[in-house]
């Protein structure tokens, strides 16, 4: 007999939430997704102990909120939204502590010329210009790496795992290449305008 889907397990759980049978449904859900959540937390935190606490919070939040699961998306997607929101809270909390602000961007050396070129954009609509120049000059992987790192504050080795990059230096190589191309594109744009 085919195992129950996640959504079917939740439907069964809701029929009688206080029974041993329903507890088994929760345990099945937990075991089905524990590796997924553990891996995701490890990637984002880069630290086993922090990942354990984050994963526990995510599951506790998910199981306490099962009534809010409306079955209008997959359970995996719903669980992802909980994980992302929990991680955003964690980031905000870390950023409120100055000494723990993310510093990994410093791993990639910033060419002075790019700083100067981008600074010239500061007073204009930098967001739309940077996005347009990225579209014009970067390949799809470079764009994703840049957006994950700068837009979503994701660590470089986490990006390497998330995108399944197999080159020797992973996401870092894409960041370096993307910034070199972007630097040239910004300079061209500054000369034209």
């Amino acid at each position: 007999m085919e195992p129950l889907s996640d959504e079917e397990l939740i439907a069964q759980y809701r029929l009688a939430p206080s029974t041993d049978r329903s507890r088994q449904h929760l345990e099945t859900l937990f075991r089905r997704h524990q590796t997924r959540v553990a891996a995701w937390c490890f990637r984002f935190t880069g630290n086993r102990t922090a990942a354990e606490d984050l994963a526990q919070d995510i599951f506790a939040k998910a199981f306490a909120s099962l009534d809010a699961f409306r079955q209008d998306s997959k359970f995996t997607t719903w669980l992802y939204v909980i994980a992302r929101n929990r991680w955003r809270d964690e980031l905000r909390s870390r950023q409120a502590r100055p000494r723990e602000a993310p510093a990994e961007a410093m791993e990639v050396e910033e060419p002075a010329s790019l700083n100067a070129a981008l600074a010239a954009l500061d007073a204009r609509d930098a967001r739309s210009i940077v996005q347009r120049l990225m579209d014009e000059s970067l390949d799809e992987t470079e764009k994703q790496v840049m957006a994950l790192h700068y837009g979503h504050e994701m660590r470089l080795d986490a990006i390497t795992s998330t995108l399944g990059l197999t080159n020797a230096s992973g996401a870092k190589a894409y960041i370096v290449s993307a910034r070199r191309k972007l630097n040239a594109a910004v300079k061209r744009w500054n000369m034209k305008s």
Partner: protein
Amino acid sequence: MEHEILSNALQPSADCPSLEELGRFADGALTPAERARRAPHIERCHACQAELAMLQAFADAEIRADEQAAVREIVTELRRREHEIFGAAAAPEIRQRSWLPLVSVRHALSLATVLLLMVGSFYFLESTPPRLPSDISPGGEVTRSLTVALRGPVGDQVEAPRRLEWQPVAGAVRYRARVMEVDRRELWSIDTGSTAADLPPAVRAQIVPAKTLLWQVTAYDASNATLAESRLERFRLARP
């Protein structure tokens, strides 16, 4: 300075859909109107595309060799903390129970049954012909969602559907469409390079009034690997 400019340029903006909405987009669960409104932004937004990449990685759950030892240890620790995790699930239940002494279980069940019958009757009487997306354009846009978005049939039908239709998936060279009984026993399946499949007469003959059937589509790439899968969709022929 540079980090700040790039962060500002690449962070999600007020135009970006919420995480929940983006998740439903990825699952192919937005209504056609919502999808038409959201798709143009999502397709060109770097932040949204990055979020979809993260969601896909979460769904795929592929673990690199250098992550496996740590992940095993985290899982072991999570199992040790199960009672704390499941303790959270019990909390809302206590709140739900608080009104029960006011109404006996038997009366509550009777009331629920009546309400369900009323709602079900209303739904059935008010049900309309299937609402298929209005933006069907065979061979048109290619969706980048993580699932195959099904076009139809969906929901109650005024006549036995003649074909299954779904959105193309980028990189897919083959699709497998399956029609199933509600217990997921397969009635019929077909492999096709197209984004539609005609139902043969033998299958259409099994579509009788009030009988719900399920269907699902899986997309494969050139190496025969699964690219995306649709949600399990339901349809049935309405009573005459």
